[in-house]
Each structure stands twice: as structure tokens, then as C-alpha cells.
């Protein structure tokens, strides 16, 4: 494998030099990270400046002090509680800069902790209207840092920039109307002094979009709707239609087509492309919306300066299983068939691991990574489209009878849901938390919403293996082969970190932060944090020592679903703490 896969760090190294020059030339911006620092942050081991630990989102650190030999000695340095009664799912990834750890908490809160002592510096509680009824949980997935600001999104669909020293509001902008069903939980991304943000909301009637706002004022610079027929804007002017009107949608269904960008994206500084995943189409019953329904369940590559879509790849055309396609697209470089390539990878809700040419969106490969994919039998390498199993599409209701019930794997919670994967530049492997589960799914002729008869879909989620639902898997992106897997009884719902110390870290709902050998998958260390871990771990170096941090606090979408799956986590207690670890001094 080493022979066929050669890593390239040249691009990143160049960016790092450029940023150093910029900082020196503009001392006025010295109070905090610049956009150039952020673009080069993947190689900065003394800080964690972005969600994903660098714009590519590889979650890879070159630090080696904690390694396969020493990790067994890892002990807590401190734990900091988020306090109060608001202990629900903690899906945040910490941001670390200049002796401070910034974490967001459930209920749209942001905390600043001293990175050496764990003492709280300040706390910001967004004032939320009590009328919001979030669909899932009240999670938040993290903040973005830039200059003197720390920026995060709130459940009532606002972006808020706080002074990172004081926690005082600098600007606060509504990015969508929460009364129309929009919300916001993803971590923002900083690109060229802009805050890049997606949107999220309930199942009916919303349209996905990506916004770029001035990081200093919060004013809108460009917006790009994700559904064909809608027109984007650049600095207040129309900037071209997304796709072609009615090419893949009938009538005016595109106006309410879905495609929410609820997870945010990644960025490639070299090509200046933002990669953003889009959610499922509406309505539920796919028979009512013939066509591919672009650009739902897709990855979009968007020019960061103008918001124009440069390429797209649809992972589930004409989605009828609520697979959604928001999963992160992570750039990496590798040699395929003797040819060095600029690639990107995405482990999709639909159970396939995609490798694409990130410069043009061309299909390279799609490999099954869960036990079963009932809806399709692989992808056609020529067209990049799924080989559908037509019998496995839930049927249309006939009169008052529900449509044909099908057993579908993965379940709509996905082969992999929101939890971000990691790519090791050392092993050339991707590490992702996946889940083996299926569902009975059908279209209901009559369900009720808002007190009246509506379209509905019915689901029953069930495990498909005796011994596990969750599985942390290591995939070789050049061969599509699973190199190793670690099975977990409860569904995995937290992010992954990998390091040049030969390690892979991830958390479990059972409350453990665990470390594995990146080459073999052997479990080398674990620590019980007291509640389920559904956050994403990070690492950095401070005062000559390597630190590892993760949020603990059980919640998210999984506990909402009962039945057989719930048996695996019914004893897990809620929580809300930041845990920080390091090796003992001697």
C-alpha cells in the first residue's frame, strides 16, 4: 500500500509560509488567528483553529509524544463541567488557542476554559425564544475562531460573534427564520475573512443554502441555494441560477425541495473550493417527485469568492430512504494506479465510501462499508451512479393502504451519520465511526401533522448483528478495503482523531474515550468519562506537553429512537463536561 500511496504536504507547507509572511506584514491583526493562519492550521500543533483541525478536516495531528507505546499512561489533567440542568448531547469539538479552550454546549451555549487549569473564564448563553421546538436534540457542534472573535450558531438560526476574551457579543445575525422551521447546529467555517455557513430545519418546505458573511460585521456576501431553479446572490445582486429549472424536478416541487446543508463543509485553499454536503429531498414519498432531484443528497464544490457551483456529485439520486448526503468531504492526496491525484473522500449515510477527483468531481470509486446495502448493489464505475435494487424502494401508497414495506439497510440514521471521520497522513487510511443497522420503511397514506392529514413515512429501526451496532472502521481509500474494524455494542455517534503517534481516538456512548493502534485496530487505552461521548476529540501541544481533549455528554438523534436499538443505551446517563488528558510529567 505504501508503494501506491504517496502523501503530499507541499501545498500545505506553502500556505504556512504565506501566512507567516502575512502576519508579519499586518501587525494590526495580531490579536488572534488570521484567515491565512486558519488556512494553514492543519500543521499548527500548538493550537486547534478549526472544526476538523485544518480546512481539509482531516483531523490528523503530527504530534507523537502520545503514541502507541505511551498512550497507556494517559491520565486526566482536568475536567470542566458545563454545569446547570442543561445536560444533553454534547457534539462539540473544542477550539484551542492561546491558552484557552472554547467549547459549545447543548442549548446554544459557548464556554471559554483556561487550557492549563480548566477554570472557566466566561460563559455565554444564547437567549432562545421558548417557542422553538427542535426536531432532534438541542446540540451544537462547535465554534470558529478568527481574530478577536469566537463565532457559533444557535438553535434559533442566528450566527453570533463574541469577543473571545470577554464573551461579549460583537455581532448577532439571523441567518434564517426559525418560525419557518429553520435551525442551526453546525460549526461555522472561516474562509478568507468570511464565515461560511449552511442551514438546517424540519422536513417540510425548506430549501438548503450556503451563506458567506463578512467575519467582521456578519453582513451577507453571497448565498447559494442548493436546489435547481433557485437564484444565488453575490453582494446583493443575482448571481445565476443553481442548476437548470425543472431539469430534475417536476412542477414547482423545487421550491420546497429540501437539500439542507445542516452539517457545514470543508475547504481546499489551493483550488479555493468549499465542499458542502446536501440533505434529502422532500416530500418523503419519492414516487411523487420523479427525477434525480438535484442537488439533494449530493456533494457540491462551491467557489469561495463567488458562491458559484463548480461541480457536483450526487451520492443518492432520487433518494427514497432519507439517506441524506451531508457527510463531510475530506480532501487528501494519493497515488492511484501510478498517478498522483488530488482526491477527496466521503463516507455517506447510504453505506458507500466515495472517492472523487476533488478538482472536477469525477467518480473514482465507491466501496460498501457497512454489513449490508439493500438499496443498491454497488456503483457503476463508468457513470458513477448506483446499481439500484428497484424492489427495495418503499412503494407508493394505494388508496388508504400503506405502500409496500421494505427492509432497508442502512437505516435512515445512516451507515455513518454526522460524526466526522479522520484521515491519517501516516497510514494513508480513513477512520470512520459507522453503524450496522436496518429499518422497515414504508410510505403512509395518512399521517397527521399540524392537526391535519399529511403525507407520512413509517420506520422501525433494528439492529442487524448480534454483537454490535457501532463499528469504527479503517478504510484504504485506494483499494476500498476495510483494513480493520472495532465493534461497539451501542451505535457510535462521536468524531475521530488520528495522530502521527500511530493512534486513532474516538468516544463511545458507553462513556469511554478510547485509543486504538492506527495500523491494527488494537485497543490500547480507554477512560470512562461518566456520560456518553458523542463529541470529537482533538490534540495539541502546550508547554512542551501533548494534550488530548473531548466533550462528554450523551444525546443527539439516537436516543430519540426506541425499540431494539434503545436497549444498547438505556442505562447511559446524561452529562456535560470537557475532559482534558496528558501524560504524567515523569
Amino acid at each position: 500500500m505504501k508503494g501506491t500511496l504517496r502523501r503530499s504536504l507541499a501545498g500545505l507547507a506553502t500556505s504556512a509560509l504565506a501566512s507567516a509572511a502575512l502576519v508579519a506584514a499586518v501587525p494590526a491583526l495580531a490579536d488572534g488567528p488570521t484567515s491565512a493562519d486558519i488556512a494553514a492550521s492543519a500543521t499548527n500543533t500548538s493550537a486547534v483553529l478549526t472544526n476538523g483541525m485544518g480546512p481539509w478536516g482531516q483531523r490528523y495531528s503530527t504530534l507523537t509524544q502520545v503514541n502507541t507505546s505511551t498512550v497507556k499512561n494517559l491520565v486526566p489533567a482536568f475536567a470542566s463541567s458545563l454545569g446547570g440542568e442543561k445536560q444533553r448531547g454534547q457534539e462539540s469539538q473544542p477550539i484551542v488557542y492561546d491558552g484557552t479552550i472554547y467549547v459549545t454546549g447543548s442549548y446554544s451555549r459557548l464556554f471559554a476554559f483556561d487550557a492549563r487549569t480548566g477554570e472557566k473564564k466566561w460563559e455565554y448563553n444564547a437567549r432562545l425564544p421558548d417557542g422553538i421546538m427542535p426536531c432532534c436534540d438541542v446540540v451544537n457542534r462547535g465554534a470558529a475562531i478568527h481574530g478577536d472573535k469566537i463565532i457559533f450558531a444557535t438553535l434559533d438560526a442566528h450566527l453570533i460573534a463574541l469577543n473571545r476574551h470577554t464573551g461579549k457579543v460583537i455581532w448577532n445575525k439571523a441567518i434564517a427564520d426559525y418560525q419557518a422551521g429553520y435551525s442551526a447546529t453546525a460549526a461555522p467555517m472561516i474562509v478568507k475573512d468570511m464565515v461560511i455557513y449552511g442551514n438546517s430545519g424540519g422536513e417540510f418546505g425548506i430549501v438548503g443554502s450556503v451563506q458567506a458573511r463578512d467575519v467582521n460585521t456578519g453582513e451577507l456576501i453571497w448565498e447559494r441555494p442548493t436546489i435547481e431553479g433557485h437564484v444565488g446572490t453575490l453582494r446583493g445582486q443575482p448571481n445565476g441560477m443553481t442548476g437548470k429549472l425543472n431539469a430534475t424536478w417536476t412542477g414547482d416541487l423545487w421550491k420546497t425541495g429540501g437539500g439542507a446543508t445542516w452539517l457545514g463543509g470543508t475547504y481546499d485553499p489551493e483550488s479555493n473550493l468549499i465542499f458542502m454536503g446536501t440533505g434529502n429531498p422532500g416530500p418523503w414519498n419519492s414516487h411523487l417527485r420523479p427525477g434525480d432531484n438535484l442537488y439533494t443528497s449530493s456533494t457540491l464544490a462551491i467557489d469561495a469568492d463567488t458562491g458559484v457551483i463548480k461541480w457536483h456529485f450526487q451520492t443518492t439520486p432520487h433518494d427514497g430512504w432519507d439517506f441524506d448526503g451531508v457527510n463531510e468531504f475530506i480532501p487528501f492526496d494519493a497515488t492511484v494506479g501510478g498517478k498522483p491525484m488530488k482526491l477527496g473522500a466521503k463516507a455517506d449515510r447510504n453505506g458507500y465510501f466515495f472517492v472523487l477527483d476533488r478538482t472536477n468531481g469525477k467518480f473514482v470509486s465507491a466501496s460498501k462499508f457497512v454489513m449490508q446495502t439493500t438499496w443498491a448493489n454497488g456503483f457503476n464505475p463508468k457513470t458513477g451512479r448506483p446499481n439500484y435494487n428497484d424492489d427495495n424502494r418503499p412503494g407508493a401508497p394505494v388508496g388508504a393502504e400503506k405502500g409496500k414495506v421494505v427492509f432497508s439497510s442502512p437505516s435512515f440514521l445512516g451507515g455513518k451519520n454526522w460524526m466526522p471521520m479522520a484521515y491519517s497522513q501516516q497510514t494513508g487510511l480513513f477512520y470512520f465511526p459507522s453503524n450496522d443497522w436496518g429499518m422497515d420503511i414504508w410510505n403512509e397514506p395518512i399521517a397527521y401533522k399540524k392537526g391535519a392529514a399529511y403525507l407520512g413515512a413509517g420506520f422501525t429501526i433494528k439492529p442487524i448483528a448480534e454483537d454490535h451496532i457501532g463499528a469504527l472502521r479503517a478504510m484504504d481509500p485506494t483499494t476500498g478495503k476495510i483494513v480493520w474494524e472495532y465493534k461497539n455494542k451501542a451505535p457510535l455517534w462521536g468524531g475521530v482523531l488520528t495522530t502521527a503517534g500511530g493512534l486513532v481516538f474516538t468516544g463511545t456512548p458507553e462513556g469511554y474515550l478510547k485509543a486504538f493502534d492506527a495500523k491494527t485496530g488494537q485497543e490500547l487505552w480507554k477512560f470512562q468519562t461518566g456520560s456518553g461521548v458523542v463529541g470529537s476529540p482533538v490534540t495539541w501541544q502546550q508547554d512542551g506537553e501533548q494534550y488530548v481533549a473531548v466533550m462528554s455528554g450523551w444525546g443527539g438523534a439516537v436516543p430519540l429512537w426506541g425499540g431494539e436499538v434503545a436497549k444498547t443505551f438505556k442505562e447511559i446517563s446524561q452529562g456535560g463536561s470537557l475532559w482534558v488528558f496528558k501524560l504524567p510529567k515523569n
Partner: protein
Amino acid sequence: MSEPLHRRALLRSALQAGLVAGAAALLPRPLAAAPLAKVKADGRLRVGVYADNRPWSWTEGGVLRGIDVDLGKALARALGVEPQVVEFFAGDDLGADLRNVVWRGGLLGFQPCDVMLHVPFDRQLMIENDQVAIVAPYTREGFGLVCGPEGGDCEAPPVQFRGKRIAAETATLSDAYLLGSFGGVLRSNVRHFQSGYAAMAAVGTGTADVAMGTRAQVEAALHDFPAAGLKRRKGPIPALPSPGWDVAMAVKDNSRTLGDALETIVGELVAKGAMASIFATYGVEWHAALAG
């Protein structure tokens, strides 16, 4: 219907206990704390109604109005307490609404209501939501169709609406019917709106030719756009998957004393004609619930 009847029988027996509790403060604590007694002790009935659900409940000029709003006030008056009618945003399904509004409250501080209005009296809903009791069906809803001056023959088979501008609320049963029936021939003619009333109003203002929605939405539009030349379809809509449904209210499963008191009040409002006059204010004809 055996399940709802069973529930109603249970409520009857609970009623007697509740009335006693309300009458005598000397009873042991568990009974004195019964929900009906608590509503009376608080002097307030908190009633949850859907936001943006015209003609049942909507906000206009900062004032919450509609059939359900007036009914909520009438229920409180009959109990001898102050009404507190509050609107809430619909969740993805009824289960979410019952959780947020009746038995748990919103995660962000929305206080549970004593009663939530406009809950379908549906057996499957009752089975799936055993934290609440669905009681006191107060009217029957169904589907209707309205045509504007350019809508052609409103009594024609719906396939003949092909080419017309047809309005419906997104993802409702009306929407599915128009998109999916007759081999999908009407699919490209359907225009989607965020509420049923907005779809009706589109015909009222001439931006659509035909609209399909609930019966109350149709009648409210006829009432609100008297000069628009609207016609209502008199014949049935063929091959509809739903014959209509009874509209009821939900209380917490342990609030059956309140639930039965509300059933009694609904019966009285119907008998006095007060129920029909509340509906008439909004141009809607009251129909008795089948289970009532």
C-alpha cells in the same frame, strides 16, 4: 373504535372522582391535586393552539384569533377560570407536538399546556402516544376543493384540472393526492404553499385557479373573499384515501378529570348552539364529530 370507547368509559369513572375533588378541599392530597382541581386552584386554563393554522388559529396584527382560540376561551369560561391561549409551532409530526405541548413541554422552556386543541381523534395516534389522553372530539374535518373564475367546471373529474394553476399546502394529503393520482397528470400544475389557507387565498386573489385543502380552509376562503367569484365543489372528490377525521383535544394521561370535564363542556357548547356560532364567526359550518 373499541380503543377510544374504552378510554371514554375510563374517563367517565374518573369524572366522578374529579368532581368530588373539585367540590371538597378536605379530601386526601392525591385527589386534591387532581388536574381539574389544580386548574381551578390556579384559576387558569392553559390552552395550546397551532401557529399559522387559519381559520383555526393564527396571529393577525399581533392578536391571536380563530375557531380554536375562541373555543379555548369558551372552555376556560365554562370551568370558571381565566383562559391562557398560547400558540406553538408544529413539529415534524403529531407525536412531537403532543410531547412539546402536552406531556413534557418544549426543551427551551415552553411550559406544557393543560389542553392542546386540534388533535385528530385517531386510534393509531392514541396507541403511539400513551402519555396523553385524546378526548372530547368537537368537530369533523374533511377535504374540499374551491375553484376561481378561471377554474372551469368545479364538478368535473379532477383530471380535467390539467393545465390549470392548482394550489395546495406542501406535503399535505391534498398535495399527495394532486401529485400522485391519475398517473401524476396534474403533477406539473401543482403550486405549493406553506399553509392551506394561503393556497385558498391564492384562488381568492386570482393567482391560482383551483385549490384543494381541508373543508374549513375552503369555507373560510369563501367567507373571506366574497367578491372573488369562488365556487366550491359540491360533489365528492374521487378516490381520496381519507374519509375525513374527527378533531379532538389532548390532555396528559393523568389529567383525565380535566379531560372528562372538557368532554362535558363540549357537549354543552354543542347543545346550546355556542359551538356552531364560534365556527360561524369564521364562515365555517360546524359538523358533529362521528365519535361525539
